[in-house]
């Protein structure tokens, strides 16, 4: 079977703002059709800048971007018709009603009127009872959902969610993820940015990490989960030892700085963890144990170590 071409293909993309600040540096990224891709990165990493360029809000400085096989500059009409965007900031028309603003978006994207579709979108996002309310009367979380409804009004094939859950309460967040999963099931590709690693873990098929304008990691969640499968066992000793006994060499133990503990890395997903035999061998080496603790390296650790790296 031929591999499906990526729905979004970013090549050698750089962006320098008018101020001279280089916000993106030679980005290369492919988004697969139908996946949920999470873009993770600290404040100011360039997530919003990248999304703005793909969606046509900012001009790129170098490189090119293809969306659904269309160049975003040369063939902007075809490219943009495929995209729904929910920006990070809440930008809404205060005096319009929910219904009017969502219908406006559909018209703007050149789609014929379809009240049934808009009704469905509003119901899915629990906004139906607010349809005749002026936006100014809504809460922040509701406004965010109005913006999602606007993006979905024109039935996009690609949905960008720039920090969709900022300011949305836990229950509605769950509801929102249900909507996102439903969209994915209907074939929509979703790219979301978030600061919450749990969110990326829970939702995404693939995760990309961006820092200081560069993509530093793109990996399947499965691959990351494998890394997550690694745990470490810290064995606290009653006395202190100066060196790991030769009989324990096979375990690749690490001695703590104070000599009061040894650290053992193991894989919970492996056939055998080796913990039992390690404890046996420790006793055989005459080492007495005072306590044990285990710790899982989280995506957070991976993330932190990646963005901290010089």
């Amino acid at each position, binding site marked *: 079977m031929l591999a499906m071409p990526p729905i979004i293909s970013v090549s050698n993309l750089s962006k320098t*703002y*008018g101020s001279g600040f280089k916000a993106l540096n030679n980005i290369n990224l492919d988004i697969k059709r139908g996946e949920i891709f999470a873009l993770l990165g600290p404040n100011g990493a360039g997530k919003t800048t990248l999304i703005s360029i793909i*969606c*046509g*809000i*900012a*001009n790129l400085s170098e490189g090119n971007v293809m969306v659904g096989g269309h160049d975003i500059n040369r063939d*902007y*009409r*075809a*490219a*943009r*018709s495929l*995209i729904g*965007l929910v*920006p990070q*900031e809440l*930008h*809404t*028309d*205060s*005096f*319009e009603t929910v219904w*009017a603003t969502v219908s*406006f*978006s*559909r*018209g*703007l*994207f*050149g*789609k*014929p009127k379809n009240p049934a579709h808009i009704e469905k979108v509003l119901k899915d996002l629990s906004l139906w009872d607010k349809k005749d309310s002026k936006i100014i009367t809504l809460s922040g979380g509701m406004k965010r959902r109005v913006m999602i409804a*606007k993006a979905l009004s024109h039935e996009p094939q690609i949905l960008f969610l720039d920090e969709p859950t900022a300011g949305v309460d836990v229950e509605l967040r769950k509801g929102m993820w249900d909507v996102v999963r439903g969209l994915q099931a209907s074939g929509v590709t979703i790219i979301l940015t978030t600061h919450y690693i749990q969110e990326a873990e829970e939702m995404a098929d693939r995760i990309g990490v961006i820092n200081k304008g560069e993509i530093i990691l793109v990996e399947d969640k499965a691959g990351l989960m494998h890394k997550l499968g690694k745990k470490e066992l810290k064995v606290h000793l009653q006395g202190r030892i100066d060196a790991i006994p030769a009989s324990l060499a096979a375990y690749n133990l690490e001695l703590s700085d104070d000599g009061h503990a040894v650290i053992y890395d193991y894989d919970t997903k492996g056939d055998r963890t080796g913990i039992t035999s390690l404890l046996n061998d420790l006793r055989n080496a005459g080492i007495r144990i005072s306590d044990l603790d285990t710790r899982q390296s989280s995506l957070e650790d991976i993330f932190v170590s990646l963005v901290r790296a010089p």
Partner: protein
Amino acid sequence: MNYRAIRAIYLFEMARTWRTLLQSIVSPVVSTSLYFVVFGAAIGSRITEVEGVSYGTFIVPGLVMLSVLTQSIANASFGIYFPKFVGTIYEILSAPVSYIEIVIGYVGAAATKSIILGLIIMATAALFVPLHIHHPWWMLTFLVLTAVTFSLFGFIIGIWADGFEKLQMIPMLIVTPLTFLGGSFYSVNMLPSGWRTVTLLNPVVYLISGFRWSFYEIADVSVALSLGMTLGFLAICMALVWWIFRTGYRLKN
């Protein structure tokens, strides 16, 4: 052409007009009536006739132009400035619409509004003075051309402005003086010859003169020149808008 997008923008802007009906229609009507009271009644009792028509009648085309000019600029500049200001412009920029479609939507709505306004002012004027329009089609042509041209001009100001002061600055400092000095309230022929030459540098003179000709067949300059100047200004505005969108000036960073 994405006609649905043009329609969506146009209707969105018109909806804003209806929402703010009071200030967009009522206040110009009231101020026009005041002009009639002040200029028509007070001054008109001294100046009885200008070039064969009563003074009150004479100033009608100028008053209409005054409102159409200022309202076109105000509507269009605010119409595009506001989405920039509150950030909703993101949606327009990310939509599959061409710049021409955006301009038709915004400028079309602003021009429609000021044309309606111009007609309402004429109707108001007809309550005060007898009004006769010799060339109704030419009158409409000048009205529409002026409304479109100055809506385009307002659109440019709205894009250029990065604060509310700038939004007000050009209309206040340039357009209002030019309109007042553009022969709304007097015939250029009434001026001493030195002033007349200076006045002819004012583009608004040509608009008002042509417009007044369509009413009473009296003009300060030839009609062809009026039409030519109006079209010329329209062309300049179009070229500017084209340049703005080509470069993404003040819309994309």
